[in-house]
């Protein structure tokens, strides 16, 4: 069966160039970057070259890039690491309602530890309400963490405006750019950002590698202790092959950005139009200002898992904001935050594309979706 993978916000296929370049580091250039001998020094030079390249993409210093084992780890380092150097009763945190669980559950953990935590709201488009955000800042607010683009809807957040608020008030600004980096340009100097998280597997690098940009002068407490790798902020033998691969994937992403943006945005638009034309009563959850690969729709009255499962049977892979599929009892917190009804939230589907998708796939997905919706609507009490 042909696999039609429309779940690129969950994870991506690793780019061929990013696979190729990594392989020599397994069998030939396998030195430990902490070793003092020639192979160690070469490994260290390799990762430092990667550090320079990545720094250039977001316009920071190489020494401000810390390699990590995932987006989740980067997020935790930023939030836990920053707050754990402050006393709970002296530190108020703001995160948005639509953050990924890597931020949301970390903020909730800090809340348990006694830190003040407030949640920034979004409007019906899934975009941060700036007035509300300003209203919940207080004199103890030390850090605000708001994602660059949302993983469920693709909504791009007003990062520039938020950074103006944080700069004015001397608050540290962290952004989870996991879904944005490689798709849009980032400049942490122009748009003043103190910390930024990224994860390789969202831009055609492997799963299990990421980085944290940590502005010089901002201190965080490490989550783990050990050797002196990554300036003691993130000890553990450095994953040279994945860092090389992640760097190459980012190179490719920015090298081919214009071409891919046009191509993928085109596919998405056809997909959207095709769905709207063939299926009625659709709610669009992805706003205009979104990453170009994401389309989130709701089909009220059809439970998402039933859709997901039926599509999966046909070799089409997507995701849903319905609870049933994740073992949770509530539907997507993002859909709820956007004011979607229970039926809308449980009926939400995310189709997220990549450069590996084709027009034929789009056509097939539209056709299949229509068939399944027709079939399941017949069964549902909500037509």
């Amino acid at each position: 069966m042909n696999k039609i993978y429309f779940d690129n916000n969950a994870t991506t296929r690793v780019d061929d160039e990013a696979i190729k370049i990594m392989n020599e580091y397994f069998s030939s250039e396998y030195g430990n970057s902490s070793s003092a001998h020639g192979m160690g020094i070469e490994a260290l030079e390799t990762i430092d070259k990667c550090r320079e390249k990545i720094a250039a993409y977001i316009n920071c210093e190489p020494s401000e890039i810390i390699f990590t084992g995932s987006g989740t780890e980067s997020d935790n380092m930023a939030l836990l690491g920053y707050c754990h150097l402050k006393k709970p009763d002296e530190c108020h945190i703001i995160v948005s309602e639509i953050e990924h669980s890597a931020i949301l559950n970390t903020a909730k953990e800090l809340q348990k530890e006694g830190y003040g935590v407030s949640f920034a709201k979004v409007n019906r488009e899934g975009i941060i309400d700036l007035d509300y955000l300003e209203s919940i800042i207080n004199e103890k607010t030390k850090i605000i963490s708001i994602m660059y683009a949302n993983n469920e809807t693709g909504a791009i957040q007003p990062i520039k405006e938020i950074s103006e608020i944080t700069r004015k008030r001397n608050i540290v600004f962290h952004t989870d750019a996991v879904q944005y980096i490689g798709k849009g340009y980032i400049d942490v100097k122009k748009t003043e950002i103190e910390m930024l998280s990224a994860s390789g597997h969202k831009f055609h690098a492997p799963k299990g590698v990421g980085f944290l940009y940590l502005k010089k002068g901002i201190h965080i407490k490490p989550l783990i202790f050990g050797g002196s790798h990554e300036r003691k902020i993130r000890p553990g033998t450095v994953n040279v092959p994945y860092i090389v691969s992640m760097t190459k994937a980012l190179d490719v992403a920015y090298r081919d950005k214009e071409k891919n943006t046009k191509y993928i945005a085109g596919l998405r638009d056809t997909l959207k139009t095709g769905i709207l034309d063939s299926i009625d009563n659709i709610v669009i959850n992805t706003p205009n200002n979104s990453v170009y690969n994401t389309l989130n729709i709701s089909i009220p009255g059809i439970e998402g898992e039933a859709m997901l499962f039926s599509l999966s049977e046909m070799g089409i892979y997507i995701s849903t904001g319905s609870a049933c599929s994740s073992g949770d009892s509530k539907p997507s917190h993002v859909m709820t935050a956007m004011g979607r009804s229970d039926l809308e939230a449980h009926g939400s589907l995310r189709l997220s594309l990549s450069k590996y998708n084709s027009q034929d796939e789009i056509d097939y997905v539209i056709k299949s979706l229509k068939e399944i919706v027709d079939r399941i609507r017949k069964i549902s009490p909500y037509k």
Partner: protein
Amino acid sequence: MYSKEVMDHFRHPRNVGKMENPDGVGKVGDPQCGDEMIIYIKVENNIIKDVSFETYGCAAAISSSSMTTEMMKGKTIEEVLQITNKQVADNLGGLPANKIHCSVLAEDGIRAAIDDYRKKSK
């Protein structure tokens, strides 16, 4: 993940649809949790003469509904009240642990429909 029976009942659910003038209607579940089931019955001489359902929910919920209606047909009221969620799941060749609640919903649906029938026919 799902058994052949679940797949079959999900793809080709039996007894689907709203019933005109049912003798009893049982509505259980909650859209907030992503599932809702309506069972319609027609009863003659204490026997389930006809049964149909409408279900909003995942594949397990839909196939549990379908299987349940199949199991109800032609049985006496007392007999259908003996149907347990375990029997439904077993007849479906088993359900994943996190989907057992779907068969519980079906069992609840039977009870609700019978209750409604008894209330109406009093």
